[in-house]
């Protein structure tokens, strides 16, 4: 989780990722930030994030992203 927060802060420093629940729906992260993030996440967690997974439900909060990453790791 710390690893994730680090990556997130690296991309957009001025968001409180630990509490924010509407990163996508609240227009805090736009699509270009997301692709920046995906490349990082894939490296750091050693998973492939397919386009199907890039939906607001998976990216609205740090917790949900973490859940997705864990799930992808298990599936692999």
């Amino acid at each position, binding site marked *: 989780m710390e690893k994730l927060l680090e990556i997130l802060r690296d991309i957009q420093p001025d968001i409180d990722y630990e509490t924010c629940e509407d990163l996508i729906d609240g*227009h805090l992260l736009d699509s270009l930030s997301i*692709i920046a993030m*995906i*490349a990082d996440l894939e490296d750091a967690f050693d998973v492939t994030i397919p386009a199907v997974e*890039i939906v607001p439900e998976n990216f609205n909060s740090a917790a949900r992203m973490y859940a997705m990453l864990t799930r992808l790791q298990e599936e692999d």
Partner: protein
Amino acid sequence: MSFALISAAGSKLTSCFSAEYLFVFLPVFLFAYSIVPDRWKKYVLITASCLFYCLVSGKLIVYLLLTAALMHWFGIWLDRLQTQMKDRLSLAEKEERKAIKNNFAAKKRSVITLAAMLQLGTLLTLKYTGFFLTNINTLLSALHSTAQFEIPSFLIPVGLSFFSLQAVSYLLDVYRGVIPADDNLPRLLLFLGFFPQIVEGPICRYRQTADALWNPQPIRYDNLTHGLTRIAWGVMKKIVVADRLDPLVKKVFTDYASFDGGVIALAAVFYTVQLYMDFSGAMDVVIGTAQIIGVALPENFKRPFFSKTISEFWTRWHITLGAWFRDYVFYPVTTAAPMKKLTTRARKKLGNHYGPLLAGGIALFCVWLGNGVWHGVGWHFIFFGLYHFALIYSGNLLSPLTKRAGSLLHIDPERIAFRWLRILRTTVLVVIGELFFRANGLWAGLAMFKAIFTRFSLPALNAELLSGLGVDWQDLLIVGVTVGIVFTVSVIQEKGVRVCDALYRKPTVIRWGTLYALLLFIIVFGAYGNGYTPVDPLYAQY
């Protein structure tokens, strides 16, 4: 009952705003829907949808039926490949698995490519052949060739652009394994052609509506009242504002050379208002209709004129189209293996901010080119798409600079005044885009845009000028009042209040008073009847 429907066929059922729809088709449908047993309701829905399509588009319903058949067939094909793969995998040794997977992935890819090409190919052929050949002809004559292509004219089925995207999204979802293939052809047909939504969207996903439509609920009193209220609200936007502005907009955009730059700027603003009221009003009618039978369609507008940036604007205006391009063009392009490599490499050289913008830019370009092309035939639509691409992309390129500038100047980006300034800036940019969107061709658009700066003289809008524009001061007054009402409601919604629900929690006197006021407002101030020409919904042509 069927007699009433057939006589509606005699007159013109053009849109969800026609009297024939609101006072004949919809009531007869709701009556039939409410009296049949629950398990038959879906058949009433299918029949009504096919009938609606026939009334609007006649024989062209074959396109709709063929699209449904295509979805059905290709969906099952993809599904079979998936099952075959699983069977083979369960038997295979560990070493063989990867090869089998790759083998089937390639097969599936060819199937989905074929299906998407058939679907989008039809769309492009019907809509773009004329445009394409006209441009070739121009080119040929520029090259002093006498050879010219004959330009065929196709009848374009209503809603083709909308249901084609729904069909492709269904197939892609099956391909990606998000949803299982549906072997129920009527259910697919209903998902595709549900009658209020077929003309102008919203563009739904299979997961959002197919099941709800196939298992429709009995009409509940609160759904009925909320749905009808929403329909009335949409009709107000369309009949009172959009249609009232239509003569002015049409006049200035057709005859732009004879108007002052100030009038052209004003007309661009009015057109933006007209388009918003027309399209979002139509969505209110569509979503309201679905709400009556307990089906929740996705929202298409979320008060777009409160957006602080263009990129935010497109997540609040025609949301389902933006989402379609995001999910089926933007992310697949950026997450494709070569693009990912590009991003990783670029980030090392250009840093976190600029790195992803390279691959992102390519994907974004595809999205906006597609968006422009989707809207219609003509260079001005392509220009419109690329204009928004340029705005969004430059916004991203410049964001570190603007942030730094902001902190240097000690501007708090969350300050109210600054927020409104950003909203205003976004609105101005949107209005400029809509000017090109509405213009009769790219050259007309450029000439009009130029005139705003070179022929601008702030003319007094006196009565003569108004009559030359086909409206009078009373028209503008009522437009102003209505826009004020819509704005007020939007501000309340921005604060998170669900206005309709809040209204229905109020005492009867207030609730009925509001509804009566709304209905009388439409009836008295609507631009319909003598002296008005009914205007087709603007997005029905795309």
